[in-house]
């Protein structure tokens, strides 16, 4: 399926947050365009793929790892942080407790991802249930600003800002890549170059990447 499409880069993202905040629903809404009210609880890790365009002509394949939220599965999901370039921290805007736990998710992700660089995005879900809201937009924004990460609120049910959330983080990673703050490295699956850029050296993104990071470039052409 993914061989049919060409893409310039592949970013691996991990989605974390308390159980039942809507991680799986968010991904299903983004990848399959459908909303499922009560998906089965995730046990272990689920996997999804989608291609987005970060700027005209530059396609990025997002590999999305959907993790189980419950404490018990952390020792299993911990292994997935290392190879991720982006982390979506999810909380439920109608459940304040899930918001208070974001700090610990953030800390765990930061600790696990070292020494690699990664991009975080704070995502509030379920904004279609406005009357039940417990975490205000300002609170979410303040938290994100404090930790210097991006922030967005979404609704998987009405697919509000779902697309935007993923494009946002993809764009941010791409920018860091072109600025040279993130590199393609062998032995790390966070960012890989796609088949398109490996074949046609003239394309724009590879030039930028080469300028910045000429050290190891063709090695991840698979």
């Amino acid at each position, binding site marked *: 399926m993914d061989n049919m499409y060409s893409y310039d880069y592949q970013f691996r993202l991990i989605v974390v947050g308390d159980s039942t905040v809507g991680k799986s629903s968010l991904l299903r809404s983004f990848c399959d365009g459908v909303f499922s009210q*009560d998906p089965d*609880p995730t*046990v272990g*890790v689920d996997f999804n793929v989608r291609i987005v365009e970060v700027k005209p002509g530059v396609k990025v394949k997002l590999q999305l790892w959907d993790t189980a939220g419950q404490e018990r599965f952390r020792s299993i999901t911990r292994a997935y942080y290392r190879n991720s370039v982006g982390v979506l921290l999810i909380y439920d805007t109608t459940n304040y407790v899930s918001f208070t736990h974001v700090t610990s998710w953030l800390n765990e992700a930061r600790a696990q991802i070292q020494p690699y660089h990664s991009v975080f995005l704070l995502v509030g879900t379920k904004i279609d249930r406005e009357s039940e809201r417990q975490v205000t937009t300002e609170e979410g924004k303040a938290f994100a600003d404090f930790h210097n990460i991006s922030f967005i609120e979404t609704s998987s049910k009405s697919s509000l800002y779902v697309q935007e959330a993923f494009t946002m983080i993809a764009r941010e990673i791409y920018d860091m890549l072109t600025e040279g703050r993130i590199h393609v490295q062998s032995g790390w699956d966070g960012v890989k170059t796609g088949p398109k850029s490996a074949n046609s050296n003239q394309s724009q993104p590879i030039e930028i990447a080469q300028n910045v990071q000429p050290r190891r470039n063709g090695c991840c052409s698979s």
Partner: protein
Amino acid sequence: MDGPPAQSLGVEPVDHDVLRKPPRKVTDAMISKRLIIHMVTSAAVIVIGTLCVFYAEMRDGKVTPRDTTMTFTCFVFFDMFNALSCRSQTKFIFEIGLFSNRFFLVAVFLSIVGQLAVIYFPPLQYVFQTEAISLTDLTNINRTIRMALYQKTMEEFNKLLKSDTIDLKKLKTLAFNGCPTDSGIRSLTWKILLNYLVLDRTKWALYLSKQRELYRGYIRETIIKPGLQSSCQSTVVDHPLNCAPNSSWAAYFKENEVLLQIDKDCRRLCPDLSFFQCKTEYPCAEIMNQEDGFESLRKRIVSSSLKVESRSQSRLTGRLEIQSNNKPSHQKNNSSLNSACDDNEYEVLAAGCEAHWEVVERILFVYSKLNSGQSYVQGMNEIIGPIYYTFATDPNVEWKEHAEADTFYCFTSLMTHLRENFMKIYDNSEFGILGRMQKFLSLLNKTDKEVYDLFEKQNLKPEFYSFRWLTLLLSQEFHLPDVLRIWDSLFADQDQNFQFLLYLCCAMVTLQRDQLLNGSQAQNIRLLQNYPPDTDVHKILQKAAELKRIHHL
């Protein structure tokens, strides 16, 4: 027609178990009573089945070549199946392997070709007075035979389950090949296989009443008593300043967290099945008969989610309305999925009624309180669901009525085998989930080197897909009826610590090998994580049994 197959039975490969059997008495007759009974019953099945076809065909009152052809064909196919089941007296065909006796296969093949020639080859048609029959007729015959065989399996189960002392080994062999769905046979078999019921039938009545009374005691201790206490003080709790870290209150809040988690997971139990949303005929009497002050789990969920979530008094009242408005809307959502219980959807939450998922929720809550070290872990709902479903749909009213207590014990017993999978502290031990996945991987290396090498090359770790398979006993991979069938085999095999599950996982991988070998890493993970749920599970089971025979762990 059946000569060659009969002779080929003579070259059946030697059954190695014969060495493990005790010596036979010299005085024993070659033709034992059991053998005679077996002969008579299988003969009866064939005769009755064939006569039924003949009767069905002869409805028009006269005997046509078509009628005799159908009857004759039916008889021949019966014979072939009978020959197949004669290959071993003690083992089922999947255990000895469908292809292990090549001569037999050739002989059966020739017999079938011969039969088809008799029906469709004009000169032979003339000799045997037959006539060509359509493919539908052939499938009809096939169906009749399968029904007859199914009937035979039922009889065997019934015979075993009705004897005073149940032969566990035989029951396991039978169950390994699948329990019939009818007459509550599966429900009873699982209770025995999960070590809930002892083998001595005469002790059941007393034992069951004791266990069920004990469970009622657990409910009283874990739900009713704390519930009553808390409701007395609940007015105080609402006060935000009164959250002093009093130890019993801390525990109560901790429990509420667990309860909320269980609640969320049970609500979404088997969403494609209406069963769990329907109301049970047997709600818990103790809880339903409590006075008003008592805080049931349902009340506790509503109020505790409010307590946890609300931060000011003024907002509390507002949210109470939301909460109560919200409930019916949730029900509505479910009912659109499940047309089967549209009629009583609103009764589900009426006082005095309970939905099946609420029963499951209670069992899990009681379990989590009694096993506080382990508590509740997501995924346990997927383990308990199929068990409860099986017990609560038992046609026998007595079993059905006590489905809750029986499920509790069977689940507890099953968890003693599975608890390591669910506990973090075991993750790095040999018995924990990581160890299990490692075992699975080394088995895959033995059974399908090519796929194993590919996975290594693609860095496709077993954690990516087999974690859920192994933890949840494949319950999330297939439709419920298929899951039940798989569990028949697993429970029959459970004293080997679910070794068969590893073979099943290998079989699942191998059956998709063509796709996997041509797929990229991402495609392969997706395929394995979303295993085609319409796969014929019998194929998987058969493959797994074959792998088990060839590769020992």
